[in-house]
């Protein structure tokens, strides 16, 4: 064996130091990754919860924080036709109560431009997201069960099973699903499942400056949702669809579709 083939002690220490650092970092990263999986959230019992959301139309200011936070948190494509949550602005003129003017430029991501002046118009914002229906039409039609309702009432998609047939997109009455062009599979709001199973709230609720969006646990008797539902006139979107929607709106105007 020639002398120059023998590893130099300094080189050896440098190399092994690098490895120790890298594996340490990888272990930390891995811990971080698996924490998102519910089975790795040891204190979380899915059957103890029944998730939903309350949206208070009167509090929403259309800032778009929720849309931006959602896209950032969940890696939603930055295009103008892919949203897990979006905000619509309704303008209802006094003489045309059933013909609302609705806008959602870039899903409300950039907020809203100043309103054109309409005398006496009623203007409000409607944040939308998956309604995590208890009787989801999207779940019903999926040919392989890639989309499913979790025991805690969240509609999720298994991207490793999704065929990309798009039947669920057709079946959703609320337009909550889109095809992620990167994976060719369907994507939608997960109610930040990776966060709520760790006791955190969703990204959209976290950043809402007015508290217009509230994650609620309908199975938790101490959740303020029960008091809220008792004292407010709440409504779900398209109740005639009988989907068991669990996003409850306070002060929802009848013109909202």
């Amino acid at each position, binding site marked *: 064996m020639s002398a120059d083939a023998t590893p130099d002690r300094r080189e050896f220490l440098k190399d092994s130091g690098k490895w120790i650092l890298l594996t340490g970092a990888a272990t930390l990263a891995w811990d971080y990754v698996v924490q998102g999986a519910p089975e790795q959230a040891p204190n979380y019992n899915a059957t103890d919860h029944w998730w939903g959301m309350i949206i208070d139309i009167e509090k929403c200011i259309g800032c778009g924080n929720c849309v931006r936070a959602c896209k950032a948190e969940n890696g939603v494509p930055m295009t*103008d*036709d*892919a*949203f897990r949550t*979006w905000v*619509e602005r309704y303008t209802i003129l006094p003489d045309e109560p059933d013909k*609302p*003017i*609705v*806008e*959602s430029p*870039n*899903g409300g991501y950039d907020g809203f431009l100043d309103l054109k002046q309409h005398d006496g118009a009623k203007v409000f914002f409607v944040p*939308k997201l998956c309604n995590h229906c208890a009787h989801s*039409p999207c*779940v*019903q*039609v*999926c*040919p*392989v*069960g890639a989309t499913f309702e979790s025991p805690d009432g969240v509609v999720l998609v298994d991207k490793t*099973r*999704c*065929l*990309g*047939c*798009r*039947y669920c*997109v*057709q*079946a*959703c*009455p*609320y*337009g*909550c*699903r*889109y*095809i992620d062009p990167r*994976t*060719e*599979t369907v994507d939608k709001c997960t109610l930040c499942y990776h966060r709520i199973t760790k006791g955190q709230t969703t990204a959209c609720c976290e950043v809402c400056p007015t508290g217009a969006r509230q994650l609620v646990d309908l199975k938790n008797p101490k959740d303020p949702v029960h008091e809220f539902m008792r004292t407010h006139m709440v409504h779900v979107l398209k109740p005639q*669809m009988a989907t068991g929607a669990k996003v409850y709106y306070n002060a929802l105007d009848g013109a909202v*579709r």
Partner: protein
Amino acid sequence: MHGVEGFMYPNEMELQWSILIVLYPYITGLVAGAFILASLERVFNVAAVKPTYRLALLTALAFLIVAPMPLQMHLGHPERSWEMYVTPHTTSAMAMFGFVYLWYLMAVLVLEIWFDYRKELVLTWRASTGLKRQFYGILTLWSDNISPEALAFDHKIGGILTVVGIPSAFMLHGYVGFIFGSIKANPWWSTPLMPVVFLFSAIVSGIAAVMLIYMVTSKLRKTTIDMLCVDTIAKYLYYAFIVDFTLEMLDLIHRLYVADESLMALDFMVKTKLFVSQIVIQIILGTLVPLLLLASVQFMRWSAGTRKAIYSVAGALIMIGIFAMRWNVVIGGQLFSKSFLGYTTYKLEFATKEGLLPAIIFLILPFLILWALVKILPPWTDARPHAGDIRNGSTTGA
């Protein structure tokens, strides 16, 4: 940018189901219709249509082989489609596709064709040598018993298969209608009439297709067209078309009269974005004109030449009209927002995965398959071999 008028939910701007999904009901409709025509002879003893019996079965098979191809091409992950067979989701109408399809292909169509052709297959097998002999040996499944008892048994089984086949053909296409009709989120699709309308339009398009194929192949083979046969087919085509038209008008009138919340959007669409494909092509050119043409034959005494011309024009218009009907259902159902507050535009591309080019290929492919099937299994009644005359060459066709 997306060709949007009014308001669409942001996720709705791009259409999810393209021209390839238009082909799916169109092609399976041709399968079901061709089979129904074949069963007229077999089950209902309409002897006049016998010249088209085998041609109709082969046409059904050729189109059935192609039917799943556009679906497969459309999937984001075609490599996962087998999961529909191994882990089907039992509440999903779409999950049943594989089973309905396989049942129809293997249990009905292939078996019926096999039993019907068994005698010729055995005779060709016996008469040929080399590779061809091997090939026909495989097709006979090495069963060469063509005794009168065996043939009588074949005939009986064939009859049973046709009887099973009619509800199966109804199921194959009624099911396709159910895929759309059961989507409550979409008022353009959601009606229990959808499977029935699909079924009758399928019968109409399948009968028209076989009638055209029979006339064209007769021309190509320089044989005379059996006028009693085409007259009878045209008569059944006319009857089926009246039922189909009545159902479609019932659907339309019901929508207009009930005038629910979706009517504003749908009414606007038919007057603008779907005006050409729905009003002009589907209803006027594809339905009223051929209906009048077919009716004229029932009430006037045209010469054979005129009748042939009428059948050709009416058949071609029907084929176009039913394609337009599928288009208006599939594409039309995605042009309006589920908020009923706006409309988008379908941009048909050409040489892309879901463009016009693959659609054209999928429409030509069944004819190539049919050509090959006709070579292997000659359907011509004037070319059937006789037991003592098997070496005259007309049996092989190749």
